[in-house]
């Protein structure tokens, strides 16, 4: 019953059945603690050019040493298409930077997925955000109706 009320509330707020696009994750990758809680889990911007995805992460360096982060190799896509994911730090708008020991920072990423580039219908995309020596990967769902 409670779940039904929650769903009805979400429907009334969004005027449509909400479609989950990105699940909440709080995980550890290569001694970086990462949260995607600031990613809009339901709504996505789209226009005639395609779907505009915004993916923000909060990251903490869990090592007691300074580390270098390089966001330039971030990508989004699936087996049909891969496009660059434009990521930068929130504080200094840098794509490559050093992170102090135990420091927390925010990464803001954007990408535009062109019409019919990933699949003819719905598609599960992998959002890969490069960090130091590893990339954190999240799932993101785009729907066929996003491209209409």
């Amino acid at each position, binding site marked *: 019953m*409670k*779940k*039904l*009320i*929650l*769903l009805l*509330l*979400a*429907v009334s*707020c*969004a005027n449509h059945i*909400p*479609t*989950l696009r990105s*699940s*909440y*994750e*709080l*995980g*550890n*990758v*290569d001694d970086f*603690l*990462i*949260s*995607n*809680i*600031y*990613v*809009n*889990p*339901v709504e996505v911007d789209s226009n005639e050019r395609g779907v505009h995805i915004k993916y923000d992460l*909060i*990251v*903490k360096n*869990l090592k007691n040493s300074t580390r270098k982060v390089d966001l330039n*190799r971030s*990508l989004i*896509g*699936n*087996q049909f298409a*891969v496009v660059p994911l434009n990521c930068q730090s*929130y*504080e200094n708008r840098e794509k490559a930077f050093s992170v102090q020991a135990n*420091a*927390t*920072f*925010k990464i803001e990423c954007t990408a535009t997925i062109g019409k019919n580039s990933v699949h003819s219908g719905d598609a*599960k995309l*992998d959002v*890969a955000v*490069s960090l130091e*020596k*590893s*990339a*954190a*990967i*999240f*799932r993101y769902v785009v729907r066929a109706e996003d491209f209409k």
Partner: protein
Amino acid sequence: MKKLITALLLLPSLTFGYTGGDAALSAALIGATAAGAVTGTQYAIYQSLMWKELKGWQNKETGTTTVLESNCSINAEFHLLGDHRENYLLLGIMNPTKDSIIVKYTEVEFVVNGKSNRFPGWRNQPSDREIKSGWWEQNYVPFPSKVEFADYETVEVKIPLQFQETKSTCTVTANFKKTQKIHKEEVSYSIMDLGIEGGPALFQTGPTKKLGKPDSYFGLSFNVFGNANHGAGFTLLSENGFDGSDSSRIQGKFSKGKNYQANSTVFAFNYVYRHFLTNKLTLNYEPAIGWQTIYDSNRDNDNDNGRKEMTTNLVFTQKLMLNWAFAQASTPGVYRYVDFFAGVGIVQIFVPSSSIGGENLDGSRFGALLRIGMGI
């Protein structure tokens, strides 16, 4: 509590070709979760973060209040949120261990300004919660007083945990530091309220007396508050049972029959000033400008010709209401609570210029109101 892919899966090959330049990157899939009714909850939490994160506590590195911690072998994140009722902690805990953990919500503590211990301001009895291996949960922990939050400079949050099998205990801590001076925390029981109201007519002044004394008032009011004290909205008020008893010229304009009767409908846009006598008791002053339409509502006239408009005029109204928020119910979603309130007060309808059948009807009409409403 929702399922998270239990572990971080190292993918030897990604589903799409990943070329990371000279140094091949290893990759970790953070996860993919089932949707369903969880969607509503997750979206509500996202909206809370967008709308309610405390601005005075946001750090420059992230532009948010986020504190991430990885101790006691678990992952946790903390955010400071606040609305017009209370400030609270948004807590996310992920359990990557092989053991279940018990989050001891009954033993959560805040250390304020490094010296003062405070317990959460739970509205209901909290219960300890189990988080199984590989699962996570998010929860709100209310601070004890929104008013005193303005004096907080630092807050240390202590979340005690117990591991189910080993019975060992550990406390996850997070530290927040204020980044902007906050002079005062505004507290109110609603930012938007809707009420129905009604009551008897009291008296009239000026030529409008010639309409005769109406029987009663009935209407509704809707207000949205920009902050605790100031808001705006509209009021719709119906006055029933004018009999034109003090003027034969007015009666002559009414439908023929034994029961002369006219009604008035007032629609007006109002400003509202809300003064808090206590957290739950307010004195509202609601001046408004709008229109009144007086129409013949004789039953025979209704049957023959429908309601016949007699005059439409500019009006000024003002209400003075004493409102008491007497009950509260928790709800899912962003607003979390609905408050129910009752109020008593008076209404004045001032008509600067009006006439029917050449009879001047300027003046004021007063009524008593009882209001019942709900607010979020």
